[in-house]
């Protein structure tokens, strides 16, 4: 028995990673029922609810004008890594890249995100690039198994957005994702940590189901066209400082302040503050009702 014990111990130690590591390759169809309005139609102008953004991010988002998507340089942009796993879908294909000599798993590739900033998740232990290296929309990802989860660390992302209404994410952001497979279901938990635009890490989840009848097609280039004939050189549309995008708050009967995001707004206690804000708004409205009416406020350029 004494002779057998070491072998058993070694076998158990060697076997545990193998049993925890799941094959993630295959075609996966996304579930978009979680936060669907934010993801498929896209968040409304001025809706920063649930985002732990700081004042700098708020100012950048308030300045964002959707007309900027008419810039030729903006028309064909893919969704960035900080956002594309929680955008409209994505249905993706994971593929294993195996070293033909050693049989070792070198990388996973993942294709199918909007605009096809295709991802490579390096599994061979290579280091992340120099800070001077190019940043890309997919970023540079490395993976390692932590228990039954594939932990993916992504750096070298571009300055882009975390929500399609202009909420920014900087090139200094680092994203950590955990992928866990339960049978034919795939769960992702992602954490975006951005020292420039976030007060706290942004945590989101996403689900996929294995889809044997899916085949992610080839990458299609977007065509860039001149949408505006009178566009001057260097045209950069943006809303001026001080613009209040109040439509979202008005439509959903929320106090404007409650739509502005921030780490405080992530926690259940914030519900009490919303109630207080509502009472404050009612009090102000009551006071205004006693005065002559003023014209409605609208964003101005």
């Amino acid at each position, binding site marked *: 028995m004494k002779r057998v014990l070491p072998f058993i111990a070694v076998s158990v130690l060697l076997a545990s990673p193998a049993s925890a590591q799941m094959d993630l390759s295959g075609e996966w169809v996304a579930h978009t029922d979680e936060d669907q309005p934010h993801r498929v139609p896209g968040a409304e102008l001025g809706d920063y609810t649930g985002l732990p953004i700081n*004042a*700098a*991010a708020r*100012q*950048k988002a308030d*300045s964002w004008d959707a007309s*900027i998507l008419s810039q030729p*340089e*903006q028309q*064909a*942009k*893919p969704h960035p890594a900080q956002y594309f796993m929680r955008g409209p879908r994505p249905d993706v294909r994971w*593929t294993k*890249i195996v*070293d*033909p*000599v*050693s049989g070792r798993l*070198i*990388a996973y*590739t993942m*294709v199918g995100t909007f*605009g*096809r*900033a*295709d*991802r*490579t998740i390096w599994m*061979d232990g290579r280091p992340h*690039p*120099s*800070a*001077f*290296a*190019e*940043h*890309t*929309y*997919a970023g*540079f990802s490395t993976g390692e198994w932590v228990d039954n989860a594939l932990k993916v660390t992504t750096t*070298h992302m*571009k*300055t882009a957005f975390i929500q399609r209404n202009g909420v*920014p994410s*900087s*090139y*200094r952001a680092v994203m950590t994702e955990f992928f866990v497979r339960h049978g034919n279901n795939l769960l992702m938990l992602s954490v975006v940590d951005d*020292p*420039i*635009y976030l007060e706290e890490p942004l945590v989101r989840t996403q689900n996929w189901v294995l889809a044997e009848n899916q085949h992610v097609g080839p*990458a299609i*280039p*977007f065509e860039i066209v001149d949408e505006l004939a009178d566009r001057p*050189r*260097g045209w*950069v549309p*943006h809303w*001026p*400082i*001080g613009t209040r995008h109040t439509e979202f708050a008005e439509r959903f009967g929320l106090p404007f302040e409650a739509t502005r995001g921030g780490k405080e707004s992530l926690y259940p206690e914030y519900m009490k503050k919303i109630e207080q804000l509502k009472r404050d708004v009612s009090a102000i409205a009551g006071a205004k009702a006693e005065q002559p009416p003023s014209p409605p406020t609208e964003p101005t350029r």
Partner: protein
Amino acid sequence: MIRRRAAALACVGLSLVALVLAGRVHAQQSATDLMIQSRSQEQPQPSARRIALPPGNPLELLRVDGNVFMIAGGPSNITVQIGEEGVLLVDAGTAEMSDRVLEAIHVLSERPINYIIDTAPDKDHYGGNEKLGVAGVNPTVAPRGLTGPGSTATENPGGGNNPQLLRPQGAIVFAHENLLHRLSAPTGETPLEPFALWPTSTFFTRTKTISFNDEAIEMLHPAAAHTDGDVMVFFRKSDVIATGDIINTLRYPFFDRTRGGSIQGILDALNDVIDITVPRFNQMAGTHVVPGHGRILNEADVVEYRDMMTIIRDRVKLGIEEGKTLTQIKAMRPTLDYDGLYSVPSWTGEMVIEAIYEELRQPASRTPTAP
């Protein structure tokens, strides 16, 4: 004795096998990378792999694209183009880093440095002109012992700004004429820099072109941008543009109005770069951009940088149009959304606002020079 010899032979054999296997693994990894890159739209990302430098060298060497590389990690970026003819540098860094720069260049090529192109009249860009220039070879001078024009300075002294006369054994150093004006002085006056740091060949036109290493190279002079002596260098075949200090990803672009720079010149130059760059697929990859300081870019990054400076300029302009004072405009915090990325003690967001304000209010006025 036989046992020792056998052991030694075994060691040598094992070492050889290890070397072969190491090379094979490296080759296989490269092949795998290529396989992935051919499937991916975002790749290739040539700069993702560091190129090893001799131990102790603090610089970093990265491939940009084609025949063009970047030496980073020093006071400024140096762009290196290599080929059969020789080596061309965009910027020379500081004199203190020249030995390390030469080490890095020798990792890439044993050919001589033939050309240096200075992008700005700043010492972190031209300070290495002398050391790197002297280490190089003037391609327009025939080697000793051969006949032909310019075989030695004595035989063919030339005249005026003839590079053979100025530095017959060294590389040609190109720059815009205004850079030479900044470094030199009329006879009898004290120049800013000694003769050895001056460029050897200058131009005053909007563009100058050469062909080197089987590649067309354009030197572009953006008027009144960072200074009045800036040059950007476009490598047509490698599809890389080196912008000098028109772009600095570590801070707001510095437009030095005391030396002929302007915010409008910066914006014009950034729009020029955007006109030149072409993405490979859906606004990804394609033309690469080497800034004067910071990381390698492509068009999308330049657009973000251009948009930022345009928005800040417009905010200040709107404040002026609304009759606000400089203090009131600063109180609006027009750079708040970008300060975390680009404000540094030597060139803060507030300093940028002041400089823009002064330019928009008094186009001919002067602003303090950033250190």
